[in-house]
């Protein structure tokens, strides 16, 4: 890897970790990320296999900031193509979703098969001896760019780098097991939500690796006397610290511990009771007693279980200062009507209007606004001891430190 394209001094405080705010604002950093992370040897999440159930079904999405098409070919195989015509660069698929037996660019009607192979070029032989492509024109050299694809329990990943390590090695044991736990049964699509955030995508990557903020920023549970930060939980990473799993198990906290923990914290307030607690009526689904999992997979996926809500969140970076977050909520194909109703009601908790998630939109934006012109200032990340280590609790920022180690390794940002 060549040296980093510009100067990005990485401060080293005596303890903890410091992140220069330039990583959230500099367009140069964004450009290098596109090359080294999103077009580099990593797997990006592109969708659920159930989103394209039949041959010819497609949806358009992004890998990094690059538009791509996820589709199912005639044999049922999943294919991911860069959504850019080999002629003069137009979007080949202009719809969000659809079904097509081949792909046709509207600009000059170059057509491709579902593997992106160029099938036809109008007027290739000219009209009445005039025009036409040169004699040495080789259609096989003008296919759509095809990405490498892998699917794990219905989650589809793609990589621009055909030499990338196999998906399961990339994800590692912890992530593979966590995906299997939530997705090994056939999935049922419930719907999408799209949230546009005016902040750098890595602010959200930090946010979902940050259990410290959970009970301090998201006050819904504490306000209604429903949340216990002293719940048993853990913060775990894969060996390369790319991916993080946060989880909690319910019902291991006591009222006395809560009173201590929340002393002088604005969030301890049980004056309020839900008028209609049916919102939280749920079913135990997993024998392990885990009620919350936030699995952050580098670079662009969050897989979550919050009570009975299940969702993938796909990060689509737009530019240095904005990204789109696509929430796709799902259940299981064999859910009964009551389970459907539970998931749809609990969906009030999550998404862009979610009782326990809307604040993340605000958090991302207030950081971006404040760091826009921060010069060489930096953050300070040390809760939990200041090292990228697993923790048997949630009072830690260790996974954020792990993320930045992984990000620097991927970007080639040297230790300074």
């Amino acid at each position, binding site marked *: 890897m060549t040296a980093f394209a510009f100067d990005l001094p990485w401060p080293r405080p005596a303890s903890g970790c410091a992140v220069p705010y330039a990583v959230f604002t500099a367009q140069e950093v964004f450009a290098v990320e596109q090359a080294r992370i999103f077009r580099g040897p990593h797997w990006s999440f592109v969708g659920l296999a159930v989103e394209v159930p039949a041959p010819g079904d497609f949806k358009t999405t992004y890998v990094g900031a690059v538009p791509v098409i996820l589709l199912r070919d005639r044999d049922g195989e999943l294919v991911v193509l860069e959504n850019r015509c080999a002629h003069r660069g137009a979007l080949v698929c202009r719809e969000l979703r659809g079904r097509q037996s081949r792909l046709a660019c509207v600009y000059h009607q170059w057509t491709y098969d579902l593997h992106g192979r160029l099938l036809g070029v109008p007027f290739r032989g000219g009209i009445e001896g005039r025009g036409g492509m040169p004699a040495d024109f080789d259609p096989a050299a003008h296919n759509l760019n095809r990405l490498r694809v892998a699917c794990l329990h219905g989650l589809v990943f793609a990589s621009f780098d055909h030499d990338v390590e196999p998906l399961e090695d990339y994800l590692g044991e912890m992530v593979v097991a966590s995906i299997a736990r939530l997705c090994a049964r056939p999935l049922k699509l419930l*719907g999408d*939500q799209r949230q546009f955030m005016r902040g750098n995508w890595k602010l959200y990557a930090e946010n979902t690796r940050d259990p410290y903020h959970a009970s301090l920023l998201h*006050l819904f549970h504490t306000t209604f006397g429903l949340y216990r930060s002293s719940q048993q939980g853990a913060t775990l990473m894969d060996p390369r610290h790319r991916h993080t799993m946060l989880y909690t198990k319910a019902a291991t906290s006591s009222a006395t511990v809560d009173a201590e923990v929340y002393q002088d914290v604005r969030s301890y307030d049980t004056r309020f009771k839900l008028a209609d607690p049916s919102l939280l009526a749920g079913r135990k689904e997993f024998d392990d007693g885990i009620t919350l999992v936030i699995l952050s997979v580098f670079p662009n996926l969050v897989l979550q279980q919050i009570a009975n809500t299940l969702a993938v969140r796909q990060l689509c970076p737009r530019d240095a200062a904005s990204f789109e977050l696509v929430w796709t909520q799902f259940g299981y194909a064999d859910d009964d009507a009551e389970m459907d109703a539970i998931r749809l009601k609990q969906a009030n908790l999550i998404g862009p209007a979610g*009782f326990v998630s809307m604040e993340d*939109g*605000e958090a991302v934006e207030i950081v971006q606004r404040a760091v826009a012109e921060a010069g060489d200032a930096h953050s300070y990340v040390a809760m939990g001891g200041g090292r990228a280590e697993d923790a048997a609790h949630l009072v830690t920022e260790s996974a954020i430190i792990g993320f930045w180690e992984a990000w620097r390794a991927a970007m080639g940002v040297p230790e300074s």
Partner: protein
Amino acid sequence: MDFLALSPLERQYEVEQLLARYVHCIDDDRLEAWPEFFTRRCDYRIVARENAERGLPLATIACDSRGMLEDRVVSLRNANIYGWHRYRHLVGSVLLLEVHAEEIVARSHYAVFRTRGEGVGETYSVGTYDDHIVFDEGQLRFRAKLVTYDTHRIDSLLATPL
């Protein structure tokens, strides 16, 4: 009230008045009064059109009781954290699709302009209201209100109801 006993003009007037009171209530930030626009058992849903068109059931907000609406307001006032903003709803093209003795089904268009803390305004949400209106406990209320938004990329977050 027997809706069939009203003239078409009277029905149209009643429905448009209800819609006007509803959006003024939200836009004046009188959210505590907002649940009163609904019957005790109700169906209030905010749904992305991209889901509705695919027949997918996910709603961004879904409340099936006035209690859930009240909880949303208490949460917005006391728990949730979001930036200061103001809405202005414009509602128009109000069509009465069905008139029964005890219920009117109406569809209208809405647009919400949102102004944020720094005085920046934008078109925040555009879509349709599908309303089932009944006369209940002395006033017109929504038995069902389905808000289907075309603008499926929600800007930042959705706190105040539509």
